[in-house]
């Protein structure tokens, strides 16, 4: 129970019309504070569902989810909003930047609603875009856009940084650079980072690797010796 993130017998069932989909079955897992955790698994394994539940964007059907002692699964919609607002940073696969806001403004969009945000400008510098803050998303490359997205997520100074396939829409090198940014940021800020990916090749960089398959946790292992992203090839 002392774990930072804790899933207890979490089940999730989607009902669309007459079709029932059991996305998660009896998921139990724990993630410790400050860890960089990679959740891997094939398409349809329930990775995104798990992330949605942890991110407060979706509710579960059975079980309990805790973050830092708070039971997320017991929160109502309003509490969940507050939870997302305060505790969670989210990095999307398709960046989801607001297209008519500049890079800096996109970061400010998030920090504007937080009680104790990080300085947007500084964060931008940290993600290596100190020069591009006035550019619009359409003027940025994919990698740069994802950096802006990461900056937007970490500027909120969240307890948990959730990344959904952050490299999915990026080429190899850019993807690598993004992963490195995430790893570095986590280390530097002591932030718990959870990355969802179907690419198992990146697991060596994680402190903890969780495999999901058909809505069940196949393994939950701690990687005693995570390696820097640069050294990983896939």
């Amino acid at each position, binding site marked *: 129970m002392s774990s930072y993130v804790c899933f207890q017998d979490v089940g999730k069932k989607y009902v669309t019309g007459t079709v029932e989909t059991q996305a998660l079955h009896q998921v139990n897992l724990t993630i410790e504070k400050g860890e960089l955790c990679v959740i891997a698994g094939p398409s349809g394994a329930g990775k995104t569902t798990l992330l949605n539940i942890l991110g407060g964007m979706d509710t579960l059907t059975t079980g309990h989810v805790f973050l830092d002692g708070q039971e997320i699964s017991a929160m109502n919609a*309003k509490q969940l909003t507050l939870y*997302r607002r305060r505790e969670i940073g989210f990095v999307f696969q398709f960046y*989801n930047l607001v*297209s008519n*806001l500049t890079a800096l403004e996109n970061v400010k969009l*998030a920090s504007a609603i937080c009680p104790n945000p990080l300085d947007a400008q500084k964060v931008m510098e940290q993600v290596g875009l100190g020069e591009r803050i006035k550019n619009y998303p359409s003027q940025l490359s994919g990698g740069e856009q994802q950096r802006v997205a990461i900056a937007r997520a970490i500027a*909120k100074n969240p307890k948990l940084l959730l990344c959904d396939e952050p490299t999915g829409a990026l080429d190899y090198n850019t993807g690598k650079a993004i992963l490195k940014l995430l790893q570095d940021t986590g280390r530097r800020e002591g932030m718990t980072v959870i990355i969802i990916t179907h690419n198992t090749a990146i697991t060596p960089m994680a402190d903890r690797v969780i495999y999901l398959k058909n809505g069940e946790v196949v393994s939950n292992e701690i990687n005693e010796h995570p390696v820097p992203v640069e050294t990983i090839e896939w």
Partner: protein
Amino acid sequence: MNRWMWKSTLREIRASLGRYMAILAIIALGVGFFCGLKVVREAMLLTGDEYLEKQAFYDEQLYSPLGFSAEDAEAIEDVSGVVAADAAYSEDFIITNQEGNDVVMKALSITDDVNLPNVIAGRMPEKANECLGDRRYFTEEDIGSTVLLADTNAEETLDAFAYEEYTVVGLADSPLYLNFERGSTSIGSGQVAGFVLISEDGFNKERYDDIYVRLDTGETAYSEDYDEAEAALVGGVEAALEERVDLRRDEILKEYEDGIEEARQELEDGRAEYEKGKKEAEQELSDALKQITDGEAELEEARTQIADGEAALAEAEAQIEDGEAAIEEARGPLEEGQAQLDDGYAQLDAAQAELDPQAEEVRAQRELFDQEKAAAYEQLDAAEAEYTAMYEQAMEVLKTSEDWEERLEALYDLVVSKQALEEIETQRAQADEQFDAAEAELIGYETQIADAQAEIDAGRAELDEKAAQLAAGLEELEAKEQELAAGRAEIETRRAELESGRQELAQGEQELADAREQYEEGKEESEEKLAEAKAKLEEGEAEFAKAEDDYNTLKDELTAHDLSYVMDRETNTGYVCFDNDTAIVDGIANVFPIFFFLVAILVCMTTMTRMIDEQRTQIGVLKALGYSRESILSKYLIYAGSAAVLGSVIGFFAGSLAFPWVIWETYGIMYGFADLMFVFNPVLALISLAAALLCSVGATWISGRTEFVNVPAQLMRPKSPKAGKRIFLERIPWIWGKLSFLQKVSVRNIVRYKKRVVMMIMGIGGCTALVLTGFGIKDSIQNIVSFQYDEITTYDYSVAFTEGMDADDIENFDQEISGVDGRVFVYTGTYDVTANGSTKSISLIGADSLTGFVDLHTRAGEPVAFPRDGEVVLTQKFADTLGIKTGDTATFSNTDSGTLSLKVSGICENYVYSYAYVNLDSFETQWGEIPALKGAFVNAAEGQDIHNVGANLANYDKTISVMVSDDMKTRFASMLQSLDYVVLFVIACAGALAFVVLYNLTNINITERMREIATIKVLGFYPKECASYIFRENYMLTFVSGLVGLVLGKFLHAFVMSQIQIDAVAFDVRVEPLSYLLALVITFVFALIVSRAMRVKINRINMAESLKSIE
């Protein structure tokens, strides 16, 4: 287009019902607005036409100051093209209403074929003293009550009616009065309050006032065809009327001529009579004079005769006296002889007396002797008769009987009787002897007496002879005396005669004196009479000359002036107003729908662009699958087109029903003579359908066209996001810097989609403009009443009097009326002014000053000086309508009073009716006199009850009517209140417009930015923040659009006001600041309502949306 595509299209509609409905709604709104407003006039005119046709409204009203006869109407009816021509009476009269005020009513006769009354309650009059009441003046409770002609009516007005009161038996409206206006009149207050319809017998007029003609036009009222048909037929009527009127004029002139001829004849007769009378009088006088002189001569003669008579009488008297003396003389010896005679008679009488007893004794002896002698013989005769009978019987028996006994006895008797008889004979002889001796003695005595008697008688005879001689002498004497007496009597008679003659003479003299006096008098009198007759004759001559003059004047007048007037329907106020009022709606109909169509185009365009954008992948796939461009496009065309068709149909019917209905209900206060007839105009339907299809399909095609040129591969890739751009506002740091971060975001977003901004500004701005127009109409109207009665005509009462008020009347008025603070007596009259080719009538008010009663100022509030001699101040609308400016000279003419030519010295603010203010000096200068002041403006003193003072004024004996400004204010206010409905209606339409636009825009915004919203939700935005993230843009745009709309609204309002023309009222075209504010607020309220509704949609957006890949 295969089955799959149809299915896909239908599914598409079902899936995006909101969007589909938005297109449908805006099209329905646009079409409804267009068709509805456009059809209003048609529907109203149709209703009007139907009503006019049903009530047989006239086509021509014929009028002549000479009046008409029934034959005139018949003659007009014979004109070709005339369906019916009815002559009618009309007469204005005053009644006293329940409040005790005198109001003027117009009585019209009921005609059989034209202008039929529409009875809405009660029944038609059956008797001559029954009437139908104006339904706008009378209520159903009035049925059964009576309309009583007030005493204040002029004599000729009272004479025009057959009765003094009429029973209201029903309520009706008349096609002559389509709207509420009842016109003006020359009597009473000058304003007709209502009409009553009476049968012809209820009037007592010699000639009809009007002829109403129905033509066989066969066209609907208010159409150009009607005008043409009417113009084609009216010529015949005009000619016929002129002919009839000429006839009448000639008749009148002839009558006049005859009259004059007669008068001339009469005058001449009079003159001749005068001459004759003069001669006669002179003759009479001379005759009388002659008689008097004759009488005098006669009198003289009579006087002579009397003197002669008197002389003769004296002579006769002397003769008589002589005769009397002679008689006296003769009487002496006669009297002596008489005495001797008397002695002789006395002696004779004594001798007689001695003789008479002796004679008596002798006579007695004789009588006794005669008796004894008779008795003795009788005895003897009786015995002789007895024995003779016995003897004869015995003889008989002897002769007959054989019986011896019997014969014996008879023999015995025979012997006895023979013896007795012989003895009797013896006795007789003895008696004879005795009696003869006694008789001889007696005769000796008797002879002695007779001798004595003879002696006496001889003496008496001698005496008698002497007496006779004496008597003859006396007789002679008496005869002579008698003669004398007779002569004396005659003398008396004569004297009496003479006396009466004398009296007669005196009388004659008196008579003559009288006659002379009479003659003198008569002479004087007749002279006087003659003088009088002469004067009369001269008077008659003067009169005749005047009559001749009058005749000439009349003739001139009858020839110089038009006597026949043919007035078509355009002269009927109700008919024209109805046309104008419907035209107002039509005018508005030309502007408003343009908004809606423009907005509809924009809505369709943005919606369809968005839809095609959303589905570009699908389009790409379809294209890749080999569907033709047209077939793919057709899906969207069908989507938009079907919405347009459905919307058009719904809008067409809803609009055609709702708009005319609402407007008719609003106009019901002014018209409302029948139920509205709904019109569905196929042309409008086609036009609007075409426009709707053009809007929807056209817009779709334009938006689709650009997408479809792309190749499938390009289409299947996500559209590169539209590049963000720095906006102009960012270059103004002092504004940009003040905005919060999220506000900046909104501002950027606003500027990002130009099309939407235009649509928003059009739609929301249009909405604001409409609302502002609505409120503006209210502002422009609601103030005029308070401006008029609180700021311009500030007097409390306007009073009309029966006659002009001179100084004494005014003093009397001031004494009698209490509670009055001030009053001014004014002249009022209605005058025509012609300028720039058109003529309008105006109320002219003449006064010395109106300070304190009417405040003359311009609309800008600058005071306008009261006009001086020769000047006039006109009210704004009147001057504007006729194009008269300050400094111009205007001519005011009134056929009854005269003409005034005045220089316009100022133009003043005024809203209700039109007035020309004139100084009384101008009348004096131009007419030489001040006309009768029959009106007054009066103010109540502070703290007085308005209606109490009003009653005081009404009770004043010369008051005809009192108009209380407060009441007028209330009346106007309530009349104008009907426009509130229009305002409400406009606001409702504006709301609908705003709703559709906002809904559609927000809908697009939300669907388009679903991902963005999901993202910020993930970022932890509260629902409220999410909503405002979207809606802030709406509010900002609403604000901007509102501002634009306010500007637009001001122009729209000005335009609409220019389209609304009501003759009696000028509008104060203005929009209050509050209305601007309200228009904005209401627009925001609409925006808020839409936001509320759309918020649900935002809340429903799933955050997982943000994780999906970009389509």
